[in-house]
Structure formats: C-alpha cells, structure tokens
C-alpha cells in the first residue's frame, strides 16, 4: 500500500469515527422529531449531561474493579430521567397550548437552561474524562485502525437496526408512528399518547447517553457547552439523511463525518489552496443545502407532498 492510500483509508476511518458519533446523536433527534415534530435543541445538551455523569462515575466504577464503560448505566438512567423531565415539565405544556414555533423556542430555552445549569454546578471550565476503552488498534501493515472507532461504528449499526425493528414491528413502535401522525386518531386506537411520547423521549435520551459514551471515548473532555455544536452537526446529519427516518440518521451522520474528514484532508490540494480545511464546516452546510434543494426531504426521507 502506498502512503497515499493508507492516508486515504485512515481519513475514511477518522470520518467514520466522528460520523458514527453524529449518527448516534442524530438517531435521538430523529426519534423525537419523528414523533412530535420538534427539533429538540436540548438533545445535544443531554449528551453533555451524559458526559458529566460519565466523568463523575467512572473513577468510582474503576475503583470498584469494573470496566469503565459500565458507567453507561448511570449515564443512561440520568439522561432518561432528564429527558422525561424536560418533556413533562416544558415540552408537554407548550405542545398543548402553543404552536411549533413556541415549541422550538422552548427547546432552545431548555438547551440554555441545561447549559447554564451545568455551568452553575460544574463551572465553565473543561474537565477531562478518564479513558473509557482500552481497545487495541487493528493494524494492517502501516495502516492502523483504532479499536474504539470500529466499536462506535458497529454499535451505531446495531442500534440503528434495533430501532428500526422496534419501530416497525413492536406494538410500542407502531404506537409511536401513529402518534407521530395523528394524535387524535391515535387516542381513538387506544394508544396512550403521553406515555408514548415519554417513551420516545426516554429512548432518545438513552441514545444520547450511549452517544456521550462513544463521544467521550474519542474526545475525552466535558464542558457545559460541549453539546451545542455537536448537537447542531448531528441535527444537520439527521436532516440530511431525512429527518424521521432511522436509517437516514445513520447515513446522514456517517456522510457528514466523511465529508468533514475528507474535506479537511483534501480540499486544500484539490482547490490549490484557495479553499482550505478551515472551510470544512461551510462545506458540510453547503452539502446539506444542495441535498435539501435537490431532495427536500433528505436522502432517505419520504416525500410528504401535501395532497391538494
């Protein structure tokens, strides 16, 4: 293998690494958006919450002789609790009285609340998270593929398939789809709308905890604001893939990860230095825009053209 190819492949993998984290986060967005048509701006901050739980519990867990990743258990519990509280305390009352714009502002406000709350509790400073996985890299000659990257990708795929099966085939999954389309009709079918929405939030928030584990494994640091940009990118990923679509979130996440990594690596060379790797964020958004203009519902999204 030439150096060029090795470089290319490792770029691909570094794209996949961040991409599969985006995908995990995007799955949470998609679940929640799918059911209540709300961009849950606070979702990125759920990840921050999860990350703080990891930071706080890992030392104790390691001290108890357990592997660090066991910290996912308290992280999921806390995230689920936070998710359900946010839904019950803020989103539900607003959903019942307001419109979609109000709901969006509420979500933004919840995001601010979580960020500033975390800052009040933990301070604004960054704090590091202990190493979570001690996975060996898999080496092919000069090419080294980090173990946790592979794990993140595999985990992302498993969760995606699991969710897809859940939503398609279980009763609760069907209830979610019904609620997402028509709450009144769903009630008439005997579905408890509120608990279905709560369940969706629980799943979405649980996913956020998983995402925070994988994120902290790759980027071992927490801060109150860490969720903002991550959340935004993941949301872009969800929209790119077709928001509401579970495979779409996965595809969107991976796509954004790859685009980021490959543009950082090659855009400068391709454009002869006119556009540098510093443009990578802009390029991600440009691709999103192009995709949406060509296919307004995203890569995997169903076209919901309104029937006149």
């Amino acid at each position, binding site marked *: 293998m030439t150096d060029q190819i090795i470089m290319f492949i490792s770029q691909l993998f570094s794209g996949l690494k961040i991409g599969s984290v985006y995908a995990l986060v995007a799955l949470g967005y998609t679940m929640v958006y799918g059911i209540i048509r709300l961009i849950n701006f606070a979702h990125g901050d759920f990840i921050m919450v999860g990350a703080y739980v990891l930071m706080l519990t890992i030392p104790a867990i390691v001290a108890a002789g357990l592997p660090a990743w066991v910290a996912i258990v308290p992280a999921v519990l806390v995230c689920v609790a936070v998710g359900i509280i946010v839904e019950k305390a803020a989103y539900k009352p607003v959903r019942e009285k307001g419109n979609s714009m109000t709901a969006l502002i509420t979500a933004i406000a919840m995001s601010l609340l979580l960020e500033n709350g975390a800052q009040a509790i933990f301070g604004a400073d960054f704090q590091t998270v202990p190493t979570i996985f001690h996975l060996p890299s898999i080496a092919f000659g000069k090419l080294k593929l980090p173990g946790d990257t592979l794990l993140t990708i595999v985990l992302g795929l498993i969760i995606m398939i699991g969710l897809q099966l859940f939503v398609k085939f279980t009763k609760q999954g069907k209830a979610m789809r019904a609620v997402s389309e028509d709450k009144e009709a769903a009630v008439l079918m005997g579905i408890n709308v509120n608990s279905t929405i709560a369940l969706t939030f629980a799943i979405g928030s649980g996913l956020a905890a998983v995402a925070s584990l994988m994120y902290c494994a790759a980027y071992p640091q927490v801060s109150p604001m860490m969720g903002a940009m991550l959340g935004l990118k993941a949301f872009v990923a969800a929209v790119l893939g077709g928001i509401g679509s579970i495979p779409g979130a996965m595809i969107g996440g991976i796509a954004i990860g790859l685009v980021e990594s*490959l543009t950082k690596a090659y855009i400068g060379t391709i454009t002869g230095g006119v556009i540098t790797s510093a443009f990578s964020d802009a390029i991600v958004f440009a691709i999103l825009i192009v995709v949406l203009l060509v296919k307004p519902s995203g890569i995997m999204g169903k076209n919901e053209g309104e029937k006149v």
Partner: protein
Amino acid sequence: GCSGGSMDDSSSSSSAASGDTITIGSVTTNSGTAAAYGEAEVKGFELAVSEINAKGGINGKKVKLESLDDKGDATEASNAYNKLAADNSVLAVAGPTISATTAAVAPLADQTKLVTIAPAATADSIETGNYLFRTCFKDSYQGEVAARFAAENLKVKKVAVLYGTGDPYSSGVGEAFAKAAEKLGMQVVDKESSSSADDTEYSAQLQKIQASGAELLYAPYYYSVAGPYIIPQARSVGFEGYVMGPDGYDGLKLTGDKSQYDKTFYTTHYSADDTSNTKVQDFIKSYKAKNNADPNTFAALGYDTIYMIKQAIEKAGKSATREDVRNAVAGMSFEGVTGKFTMDKSGSPTKSVIVLELKDGKPVYNTTVQPK
C-alpha cells in the same frame, strides 16, 4: 446639534475618586467557551484586591472590585464596559479577557478616557496606544519567541503550523510563528487550519503534517483543545516530533497516556518553579490559601494587573483623575509575578517569555527568553 446622540462624546472627564473607596472595574468572560480564563483572572483580581485591602488599600482608601461578565461577546462587553465607564467612581478597568472582546472595548477606553488593562488579550491588533494597556506580551512577540526557541534550543529545520481561523488569537500567533520561522531560516513545510479554534477532530490535518516530514508542530490553541485533542491525535497519527504552543496551553488538559505529552513546549508568562522571581512563591502560597488550588498563568496575570493599577493610582496621587492614572500607566515599569517589564508606547509590555516543557504531564521550567 446632535452631539448628545453621538456615541463619541466623552462627557466624563472624571473628577478625583471621591469618598473613601476606589473602585476598580473588571470586564471578563465568565460564561461561554472562554469562561475558564475569565474565572481565573477574576480569582487573580480578587486575591490582589484582598491583599491590598488587608494592607490598608491604595492611598489609604479601600479598593472595591466591580466585576462584570461579557459572555465572550463584543456587544455585551461594550455594554458592560459602558456601565463601568459611566460610573465616575471607577478609576480603572481590568480586562477584558479575550482579544475579541478587548477589540470592542479598546475604542471605548479611549473615548471615555478610562485606563483599561487587559491581563491576557494577546492579539496584536487591539493596540490603540492610548488608554488600552495589557499585562501580557503580544502574539507576534510570543510567536517569534517560540520560533527562536525552536531554531536555537530545539534546533529543528522543518516546522509545521496548525491554527484555527475563527479565532484571532490562534491565527494571530500561528501566522506570527510562521513568519518568524521563515526569517530564522527554518522551513515551514505545512500550514494547516481548522474551521474554528474549538473543533474536536484534527487528525486529517495532522496526518498531512505528519506526511510533510515536519520535526516540530506549532499549534496555537487553547488548553482545552490542545490537551485532549490535538496532541493525542497527533501522536495517534504517528507524529513523534516536538509540539509547541502559546500561553493558551497553560493548564493543559491531559488525557490518556501521559507519555504522549512528552516533547511538548509552550511559551507563557510565569512559571511556578521560576526561582529567579521571589514574588512567585508568595503569590502561589496566598492563592492556595484563598482558593485551595494552584494558580495558573491567567490568575497570575490578573493578579499583576491589579497591582499595576495600584502602582499607577499611587503614583497619580490622592486626587487622581482617570487621565492621571492613564499617564501613570503609560511607560511604567513594573515587577510582578509574571516578570519585570516596561510599558511600550503602544501599551504593551516588553517582557520576558518563559518556556515550559511538559515532563510526565507536568509543566517544568525550561528557560526564560529575555526581550531583545
């Protein structure tokens, strides 16, 4: 007839600080991504103020610190600053924290004739040569010292630079380093950039740097980015050369294997084990007593900033006006925990730079580069 509406009127040619207290204002970044710096600075301010008050204040008057947050935002910073400026009892301002907000405040300082000393805003461009001063050296100087250190002490030939374009600090130091490196006969083999100074993933750029054969990577980022992301990622793509950074590396966050931080150097303002400076140990002791933690560079700069103001007010005398204080700061010589220095004409100190090296994850004093 619109003068009243003009933002440029300087109504307040402030009278002497009346009453028996002197108010020092501060505008710092206490929330948002750069909050840690602001918080450290405020701790430095508070320590200095309490020490000063314990020793009887300035010119016999008690000192009061009026501390405001700018959230790292230019508009917030100017509003906060204007609030201080409108208060005639404020004689001087310490802050703002980062260059971006300092740039917004600089013209206000000139306009309201209120001396303002930024502890750590290092960007070159904020200089006005009038009411704005700083306690720290500036980026071009810092970059140049780093380049000189690389050439003379580390004796490298090929260097690479990586910086974030979104941040004037990161790109400012990065460019300064590159320019100086070329002047000193080193070869800048690769120059990479990131979208912002708080990205998390740099391996694409780092891989190219590794491929370019650089012996030293100059990566001017904040401590929160260089520690957990840049250095480990550089090591994981196989880069084994030196890594250098600016004062933002202070308090570097370490993760994982400590040995990956070996061969890392950075330029800064002060070192805890700089034995050449006797003030340092006293400062560390009282800081620890008050805050139960080790001070970092920014706390040290904040601490010095207040003492600079004290020195200036004392010199200006009991009935000092804002202008008097300004004149006292201009050209002053000062000796503090971050070194001994003199203010130049444009309001920046000419001061020595300390280079620290990470050994087993701990910063260790390496050398002091004296100003030429």
